[in-house]
């Protein structure tokens, strides 16, 4: 199998032949890059590496326990949208577009969003963030965010992988059961090629192992990269809503119990992300559909005290019609006293898509490093943030842009793309940026989590002040949307 045509003398031959036999016994398949995790980050990285001409001769594998073939063939439902969605910034969308990855998604199911209204329930502050058509980027249209269902993006990426990336092997329906280096191999452990053992007993030995396997990454554990962070003791409840009329604006309201956001989808649909503690989560997750949509209307309009009263009624098992009548009465008196403020309010919810409510826990995880010995982390494996600013996958896509560029340049220079000197360049570019974004998102969460009157008054003052400063607003918009 191995042919190193060498001329050496006796004792050297002995050393080399020992290395020779150890390699023969492993019988692992050899890859340049093995990506663990076929979610949006893993698929986007595979699609990017697979489309770079400089990496054309590289062997790349993408491993996932799911039946990715089915995801690829996904036929979107005609009467609803899925509740797991992503917000993609304009620059990340352009990046995916430039590689031909974006156009393979069902683009008719993508909603452009160029306005966001953020309000504070406690202090009454409001910021209306409208995307500005900046003179410098006139050709780039506006700085808009794109709302897309996670499955729509992943299935589009998988179609691109199958159709235009022959160098990428998709290995589906297998779990990673172990990662280790060859115990008999010589040299420092950090420079040894990891061997990934799969549940079907295949063994892949790789020059570079990518952890795109999410918050509890097994690749990160193998590399011994530590993490720290906080558990927000909260969950995000997501659902698909049908609105009373078409809407292209994102709305977010900070409630003392956590932020609630309504994100636009085409055809009068919207995605709901509502952060709650686990007790309220169970209460709202199991509430009847019609009560739930009334409560969403209420959560965007009513005061904190009123919301507490409604939750109490729900806890006490108030009958559905009585609870709905109570909400309807309170909403009616709200519209009487707040006539004319409709532009800052989302359209009323007509219905919730049946069985669309699902939830996930909210955490923040910071890694000690994005790289280890022949290991690089991308996406949630390298950073977990609160979804309140919709930055999770955007940070992941920026990781991917950076890592693919680093690997492309290293390949052109004939470098070993798994070498620590190469991976250090990726860590140097991305680590601090990710950390800064995680810090900002965490600060926003803490600022709005405070219930003290002084803090809420101060933040509402800040929000209203920001709303009157167009220059500061446009900087904020370009920071979060472009």
């Amino acid at each position, binding site marked *: 199998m191995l042919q190193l045509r060498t001329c050496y003398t006796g004792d*050297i031959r002995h*050393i080399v032949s020992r290395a020779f036999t150890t390699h023969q016994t492993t019988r692992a398949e050899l890859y340049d890059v093995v990506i663990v995790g076929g979610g949006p980050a893993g698929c986007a990285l595979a699609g990017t590496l697979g489309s770079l001409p400089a990496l054309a001769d590289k062997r790349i594998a993408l491993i996932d326990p799911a039946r990715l073939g089915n995801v690829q063939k996904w036929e979107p439902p005609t009467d609803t949208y899925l509740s797991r969605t992503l917000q993609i910034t304009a620059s990340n969308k352009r990046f995916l577009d430039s590689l031909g990855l974006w156009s393979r998604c069902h683009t008719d199911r993508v909603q452009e969003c160029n306005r966001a209204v953020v309000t504070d329930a406690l202090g009454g502050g409001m910021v209306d963030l409208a995307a500005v058509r900046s003179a410098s980027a006139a050709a780039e249209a506006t700085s808009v965010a794109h709302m897309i269902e996670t499955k729509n993006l992943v299935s589009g990426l998988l179609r691109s992988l199958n159709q235009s990336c022959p160098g990428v092997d998709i290995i589906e329906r297998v779990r990673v059961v172990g990662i280790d280096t060859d115990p008999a191999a010589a040299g420092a452990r950090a420079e040894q*090629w990891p061997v990934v053992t799969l549940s079907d007993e295949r063994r892949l030995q790789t020059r570079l192992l990518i952890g795109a396997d999410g918050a509890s990454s097994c690749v990160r554990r193998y590399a011994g990269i530590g993490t720290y962070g906080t558990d927000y003791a909260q969950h995000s409840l997501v659902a698909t809503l049908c609105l009373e009329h078409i809407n292209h604006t994102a709305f977010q309201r900070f409630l003392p119990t956590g932020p609630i956001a309504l994100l636009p989808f085409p055809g009068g649909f919207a995605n709901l992300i509502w952060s709650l503690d686990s007790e309220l989560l169970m209460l709202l997750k199991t509430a009847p559909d019609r009560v739930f949509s009334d409560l969403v209307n209420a959560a965007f309009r009513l005061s904190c005290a009123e919301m507490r009263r409604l939750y109490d009624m729900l806890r006490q098992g108030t009958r559905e019609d009585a609870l709905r009548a109570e909400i309807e009465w309170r909403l009616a008196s709200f519209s009487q006293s707040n006539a004319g403020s409709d532009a800052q309010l989302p359209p009323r919810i007509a219905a919730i898509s049946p069985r669309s409510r699902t939830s996930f826990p909210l955490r923040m995880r910071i890694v000690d490093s994005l790289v280890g010995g022949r290991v690089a982390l991308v996406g949630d494996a390298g950073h977990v943030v609160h979804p309140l600013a919709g930055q999770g996958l955007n940070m992941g896509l920026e990781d991917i842009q950076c890592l693919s560029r680093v690997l492309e340049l290293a390949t052109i220079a*004939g470098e070993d793309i798994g070498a620590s000197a190469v991976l250090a360049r990726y860590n140097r570019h991305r680590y601090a940026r990710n950390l800064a974004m995680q810090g900002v998102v965490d600060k926003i969460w803490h600022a709005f989590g405070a219930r003290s009157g002084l803090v809420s008054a101060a933040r509402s003052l800040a929000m209203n002040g920001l709303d009157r400063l167009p220059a500061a607003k446009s900087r904020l918009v370009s920071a979060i949307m472009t």
Partner: protein
Amino acid sequence: MNRARVQYIRQTLEDLYGKNAVTRGLRVVDVGCGGGLATESLARMGLSVLGIDASHENIAVASIHAQGDPILINSGRLEYRQVTAEQLLLESNATASFDAVVSLEVIEHVNDPRSFVQSLVSLAKPGAPIFISTINRTMLSYLVDVLVPEYLLRVIPAGTHEFDKFVTPEELTGMIVDAGAMALDTRGLILDPVFNNCFLAPKHFGLLPNAGVQANYILAARKNTSTS
């Protein structure tokens, strides 16, 4: 430093042989390959590389290091031999058999640089490029390549470099012309010790002639097509 000089070699090969030159499997010899740092990089690009070195130890180190990259070994593009350029030329089919000849940081250690350059040129096919990197003989090079690393910082053993053996770009160009080739281009290789980056510098900085090649430099030459 390896990155900068290897990229320079790639760029020159693409200029001479066309855009996809390195992936077409051109045959390259790396004379005085040492531990195989540049040899491996050139082979990973897609070139077919023979690394030769006079020292058993260097060839052993290079061979063992290459074992760490099984994909590179399987490609069959990398070969090491313990042989000198002069000995290689004695073999029947070695003369004028390489699409490129590379010799990095070697000539400052050889006793007869003139005949060494002659051997390098003899290995190249007519019209093929020859790359030689070495150290100029200047006050600056004595400071940055001998005094500081060998005697002050002691990061390399004292006596590694003999200042008198350093070759100026003019002397090297003369040897190349005498050996039947012509010099194409000379670039400085400047090390940034703070970030440990190395970059290519032009030979002349504006009004300062030869400012870029005061210490380390790389020279690209091309063997004449006619042997007149």
